[in-house]
């Protein structure tokens, strides 16, 4: 706009006027603002030269420093593995019992195998080994298959699938009630039916079970199949058994195999030590 048409001539404005008097001036921006502006674009240029910045079709510009976030991650990982390295080499080929005896090494395992336990075990047995409905507690000292370090390692390695035949054919409801009551009160060893019906064959004369068979201890008040109505639960187990293919109402109780392709030997050994140290290892 020429100066003649400008209603405010000689004022260094853009010539655009709104509402009769409102106009935009062409003043220089403040110095601090200009410093900030130039510093910003200089920073961007330097950054783009040094670091990966511009996306290309399949890749991006690399930057002269050659930095990548993945490299940084790998470096951090390497630093952690350097700390773990000596322990891990020591663990290889060492029997689980020896790991348990070595205080420093077992402390390392308790701390580092927490992740392993969380990934593989806690879905059924709970984050602290506290068990779940239908899944045994690992923090107590009641073990179906024995609580020594080797027993635990074996359970993880090979898995466990116990079997109790359904007794509905030889035990009637009244007898089952009697047996269940005796078990709940811890008096099963003195119950005549216990001997008569052949329960002692697996659960032992004293009712304490046998680790070799995986038969349950019936007098310690710790229940493999916990329920609100424990009496009813015990009766159900007597009538329908555990893992009995002939009875559709049988209880399912299976610990999967973790050996072979699932977990390495060292990992299983670590888990065995970890579980042993949860509070009930023998």
């Amino acid at each position: 706009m020429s100066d003649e048409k400008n209603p405010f001539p000689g004022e260094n404005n853009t010539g655009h006027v709104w509402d009769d008097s409102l106009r935009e001036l062409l003043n220089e921006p403040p110095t601090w603002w200009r410093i900030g502006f130039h510093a910003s674009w200089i920073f961007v240029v330097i950054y783009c030269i040094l670091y990966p910045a511009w996306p290309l079709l399949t890749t991006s510009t690399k930057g002269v420093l050659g930095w990548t976030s993945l490299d940084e991650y790998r470096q951090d990982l390497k630093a952690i593995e350097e700390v773990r390295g000596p322990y891990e080499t020591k663990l290889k080929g060492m029997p689980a019992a020896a790991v348990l005896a070595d205080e420093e090494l077992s402390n390392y395992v308790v701390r580092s195998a927490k992740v392993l336990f969380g990934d593989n075990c806690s879905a059924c047995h709970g984050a602290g080994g506290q068990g779940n409905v239908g899944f045994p507690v690992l923090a107590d000292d009641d073990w179906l298959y024995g609580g020594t370090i080797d027993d635990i390692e074996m359970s993880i390695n090979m898995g466990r699938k116990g079997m109790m035949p359904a007794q509905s054919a030889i035990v009637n409801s009244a007898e089952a009630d009697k047996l269940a009551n005796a078990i709940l009160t811890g008096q099963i060893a003195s119950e005549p039916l216990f001997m008569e019906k052949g329960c002692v064959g697996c659960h032992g004369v004293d009712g304490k079970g046998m680790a070799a068979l995986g038969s349950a201890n019936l007098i310690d008040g710790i229940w493999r199949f916990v329920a609100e109505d424990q009496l009813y639960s015990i009766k159900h187990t007597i009538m329908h058994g555990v893992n009995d293919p002939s009875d559709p109402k049988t209880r399912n109780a299976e610990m999967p195999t973790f050996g072979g392709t699932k977990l390495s030997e060292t990992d299983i050994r670590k888990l065995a030590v970890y579980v042993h140290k949860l509070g009930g290892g023998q």
Partner: protein
Amino acid sequence: MEKVTQLDQSHVDELYAEASYWHVNTGDEVIHAKRMQGRFRRIKWYTATVWLIYFFGPYLRWGDRQAVLFDIPNRKFHIFDITIMPQDVWLLAMILLFFAIMLAAVTSIAGRVFCGYFCFQTIWTDIFTFIEEKLEGPPAKRHKLDKAPWTWDKIKIKAIKHALWLLIGVITGIAFTTWFTDAYQIWAEYFTLQASLIAWTSVLMFTLGTYILAGFMREQTCFWLCPYARIQGVMYDIQTILPTYDINRGEPRGRLVKGNTVEGNGDCISCNQCVAVCPTGIDIRHGQQEGCITCGLCLDACDSVMDKIGKPRGLIRYSSHEELEGKKPQPLYKRPRVIIYFSIMLIAASGLLYGLTNLGTFDLKVIHERQPLFVRLSDGSIQNKYILKILNKTDKDMHISIDVDGPDNLTTQGVKEKTLLPSGKLSSFIVFVRIPKNNLDSDRTPLYFTIHSYESFDDNINYQSMFYAPRI
């Protein structure tokens, strides 16, 4: 279209009269203050020596380490005999509280004492202008030199000045880093170019900071940058003593005529010396204002003039608003703000004293396992799991025993008779506690953990936790 309400011009004048002299320097003029000898000048030099601790403190040794070392990588603050770890960092809050309230207390009594006599900005600027005066001469010459064309002589003088300023900046930066890394070691690292990136960056930032703030920004920092300047300004009241121009005695001011004051005039002879010496370039005769850092240099200037013209000193003096109005100043212990500030300072100081004398040897935390809260065992007893985290705060390895006290027939697992606690480390132990169910009469029973030290018998430490059992 223009609608301007016409105000009575005299009212407007009145409105602006107060601000008519108002002149604010936003950095477009360089202040070259005159240096004058005097009482406050001397006090200023004495108070500035506090900063010698900043430069030389780190070279003091204590045993085989630096006496005061803020070891951030290892999370340990060493202060002579005391080592403070992150667990005791609440002490830092006490220190901050103490000094924050001290600032308030001192400001309410005597104004911006910190600004005028102790602040690094004031003192570094003072040193920088001292060098400037030695090289370039008094203020008039400096102004002239600034305007003069660039000659070889001017370049030489300016180059030496800036080199000296930068050197002070570098020394300031290095001094800062010596508080965080062993002083002797970091000097060796600087000379062999082995220092860490953080150290180099700190030195660079401090060098630039010192050079720019004390060399160029100067009073502008106090005007526009510093929050404390503004905070302290609002802490004054009418009882605060501040450098004040005695308006009753000084006005009406006028120049001397033939070496004598004009009849009817006050004591102020408009010599402008108070303005000439002011490091922030204000005129104290306009009263207290944001630019005044209460450094007292105008008092020295005025006193020397009063001496010369044979008038009593103290035309400009430390005085409260109240006193100037002829009231008798109230004693300190009758002023509520002073009492409150000192009470808070006392609380902070007591907290600090308690903290420092009760740092203790250990720090014990007992964490009860929540998954599961308890476990039933085959023999009918209940087992709980605890994680003990014990920190050995001393610089020696210690041996401890762990005692658990609770209901009868309590047994523990995982507790050794003599356990090693490495110096300065946090060790954690898993402890299982078993109690027969019959000995528990509640689903929650208090349990007491005690750590006994083999090395010192006074350093037992307790922690109360809970033993959980199934509902009875």
